[in-house]
């Protein structure tokens, strides 16, 4: 490096006579190189300056003056400078184009991203609408369920209170009837047995006056109840079946006829003559036969 620099320095300063000098050849080569580069198009003014200096060097080179090498030296530098300036301009144009391309790519990327964002937002909005609908349906369903439960509770409450009320009413009836007659619970219902000796004379179906106070109490109890009532008449075993059947039917009817005007709904009452069936005592004694002459009032269980 140092040797080269020293040689160049000396050459620059020298008053050499060689022609064409190596400096002039170098200057021509440098100018030719610059002329075939981008400086021709991009830096014609710089190239022109180099050309002027080269022309000067060519002219002064002919007389071999010490200034000739100097001029060639300057011409070479200026030609190399013009070449560098041309390449600089070319690189800057490249960079400008690349920057535009880069911006275009970024813009495209941004547009794509915005599109994707908009799409995602659309989907999100749809999902939110669907969710809101689902929640609305859920709320409706819950409200309907709550209403149903309320109605169910009300119905249950009513049923419970009706049941309680009925149980209380039945107990009231039972309590009242227990005071006046034999009461027992059977599968067919609550059975109230009224002794025939108290109600009827032998062979008759008209009620005895002595029976009225007792039947008044029965009527008062049955009036408060709402079960269906079956009134069955029975006889002892004496007499024909046909007679006993008619007699038992008449006795049941007599009881019904007594109860109906005293507040017991006739629609609830059925009567049946049972004749000598189902004796509750032996028919061989007078007491037994008296027990068998009876009327049974059956309170049929509510369905």
């Amino acid at each position, binding site marked *: *490096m140092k040797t080269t*620099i*020293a*040689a*160049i*320095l*000396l*050459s*620059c*300063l*020298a*008053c*050499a006579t*060689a022609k064409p000098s190596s400096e002039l050849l170098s200057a021509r080569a440098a100018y030719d190189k610059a002329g075939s580069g981008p400086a021709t198009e991009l830096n014609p003014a710089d190239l022109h300056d180099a050309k002027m200096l080269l022309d000067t060097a060519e002219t002064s080179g002919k007389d071999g003056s*010490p*200034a000739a*090498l*100097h001029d060639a*030296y*300057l011409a070479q*530098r*200026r030609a*190399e*400078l013009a070449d*560098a*300036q041309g*390449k*600089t*301009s070319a*690189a*800057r144009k*490249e*960079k400008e184009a*690349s*920057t535009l*391309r*880069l911006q275009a*790519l*970024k813009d495209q*990327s941004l547009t794509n991203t915005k599109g994707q964002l908009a799409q995602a937002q659309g989907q999100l909005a749809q999902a939110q609408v669907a969710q809101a609908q689902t929640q609305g349906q859920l709320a409706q369903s819950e409200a309907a369920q709550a209403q149903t439960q309320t109605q169910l509770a009300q119905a249950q409450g009513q049923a419970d209170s009706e049941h309680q009320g009925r149980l209380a009413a039945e107990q009231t009836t039972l309590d009242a009837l227990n005071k006046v007659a034999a009461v027992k619970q059977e599968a067919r219902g609550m059975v109230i047995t009224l002794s025939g000796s108290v109600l009827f004379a032998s062979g008759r179906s008209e009620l005895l006056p002595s029976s009225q106070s007792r039947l008044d109490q029965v009527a008062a109890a049955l009036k408060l109840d709402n079960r269906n009532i079956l009134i069955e008449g029975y006889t002892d075993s004496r007499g024909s079946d046909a007679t006993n059947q008619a007699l038992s039917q008449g006795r049941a009817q007599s009881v019904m006829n007594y109860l109906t005007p005293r507040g017991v709904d006739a629609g609830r009452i059925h009567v049946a003559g049972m004749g000598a069936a189902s004796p509750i005592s032996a028919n061989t004694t007078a007491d037994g036969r008296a027990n068998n002459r009876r009327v049974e009032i059956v309170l049929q269980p509510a369905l």
Partner: protein
Amino acid sequence: MNRFIAALFASALGAACATAGPIPTDRLAASEASVRGAQEAGAGQTPQAQLHLKLAADEIAQAKQLISEKKNDEAGRALDCAKADAELAVGLAREAQARADANQAVEQINLLQQGNK
């Protein structure tokens, strides 16, 4: 060797032709300013630019030596050479910078295109 002998001869001839013109103060200032400009342009970072920066500095030193020897015309020519080398150093440094910028922009495009794939 031939070159060296020629240089010696030229040197001797140059010395013989020396004339005592005015001291080239303006050209000295101009060439020194050009060297500073080249340094600021980053000529020290590019090998080719660095070479011409070094040449310019050496030529200025040579010119100062010639001035002290009353060889003002030769000193003036050396300073012209120094200015030309310094300006070339600036041009080379700018070219290197512009080329690096252009390559970097291409690299960014490549990166972006790879990222999009």
